[in-house]
């Protein structure tokens, strides 16, 4: 179980790209907020680069470079899909890696009351996981609950206590079916969290199978 910062092994999976998508989302949002983990990730990426330099090579087809240049000459850069308009209030509350999942700014989200003092807004699902923002009123106790599947929470604003542990801005908490708890939001300010709830299926698999549709497109 991770708590507060992702563990060393999780950062390795994140930097190497082997971490599944839902965890990658929560870790990238944490990394955006945490200078220490950001430095660790930069170091791990430098390690990945040395491993790339010193790793195996596979020879390219003879005309690969000419084919690439011909392609670059005729291919226009793909149109950049403009992201949602993110206002200042939103960009100061939600780190950039999550912006692509927001339909618009925080104020225009559809908040749904899920318990007294607790509101939830669903974002675009990511990698098979449900993603949402949770807003908990200052001092509110969340009704005692357990979890159907694994769930990650990242504190974006404010904080909360869960038993003896406190989670502040940038901290990650993880919970699963074994956790039965009733966290309490800090007094003074409402608490905003990002939550990622894993589905039962994981998006991993051989690259080849997934590439096939893509190759048909470009053929």
């Amino acid at each position, binding site marked *: 179980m991770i708590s507060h910062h992702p563990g060393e*092994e999780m950062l390795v999976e994140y930097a*190497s790209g082997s971490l599944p998508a839902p965890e990658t989302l929560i870790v990238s949002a944490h990394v955006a907020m945490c200078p220490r983990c950001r430095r660790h990730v930069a170091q791990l990426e430098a390690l*990945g*680069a*040395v491993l790339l330099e010193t790793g*195996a*090579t596979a020879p390219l087809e003879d005309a690969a470079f000419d084919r690439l240049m011909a392609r670059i000459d005729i291919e226009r850069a793909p149109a950049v899909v403009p992201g949602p308009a993110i206002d200042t209030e939103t960009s100061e509350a939600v780190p950039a890696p999550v912006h692509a999942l927001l339909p618009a700014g925080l104020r225009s989200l559809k908040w749904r009351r899920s318990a007294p003092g607790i509101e939830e807004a669903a974002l675009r699902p990511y990698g098979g996981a449900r993603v949402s923002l949770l807003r908990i009123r200052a001092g509110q106790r969340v009704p005692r609950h357990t979890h159907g599947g694994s769930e990650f929470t990242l504190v974006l604003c404010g904080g909360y206590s869960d038993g003896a542990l406190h989670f502040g801005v940038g901290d990650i908490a993880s919970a699963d079916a074994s956790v039965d708890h009733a966290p309490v939001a800090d007094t003074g300010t409402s608490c905003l969290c990002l939550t990622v709830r894993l589905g039962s299926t994981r998006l991993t698999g*051989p690259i080849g*199978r997934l*590439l096939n549709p893509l190759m048909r497109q470009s053929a």
Partner: protein
Amino acid sequence: MTPVAAMTDDAERPALPTIATVTPLHPSTANAANDTGAAALANSLIAVGARADREAFRTLFRYYAPRIKALMIRAGARPQEAEEVVQETMALIWRKAALFDPAKASASTWIYTVARNKRYDLLRRENRPELDADDPFFAGEAEPDGEDVYGAAERSEIIRKYLDILPEEQLLLVRKAFFEDMTHQAIAAELDIPLGTVKSRIRIAMRSLREKLDGVHL
């Protein structure tokens, strides 16, 4: 688009195709980019970004394309598919080269992250969430973004020396972790060693590497 059921887990991963050239595990015995090489590669990448220099791009292609192809094959692509991903990755490098900042990373680090992200996007069918240097969360930090006490070239040299002395069993795990799109769980299953052992070996290896990289920070 693609039903999740069409994807398989690691257990069904096909046997990896043979890679033509297998270099030794330890960097010093392999064909590492030395300091001059690293500077030449960085200059090539800068030339591509600044003035769409085709000869400089050819230099980058010669060096990186066979390595990226091997990276994709290790992740499970067939050679023909890996060839296609190399084309796409190199085209992306051509288009994004102007974003390369030699003060922040070596050319290899920048290119590694582009290739890693491409592989991620294809495998996960999602765009990898990207950090944004203009993110207000980065502001007001004591430390500049991701910067170490060492420059990019020194950092690579420290890593290379470190890998040279890393016990083979740990080096094997680190290579698998970075190259085969295997979670630590999958590595443990393949090597038939406990997950806890995989995690602790990687953790120990990474901690001692970071101590060297953080230098006087500690």
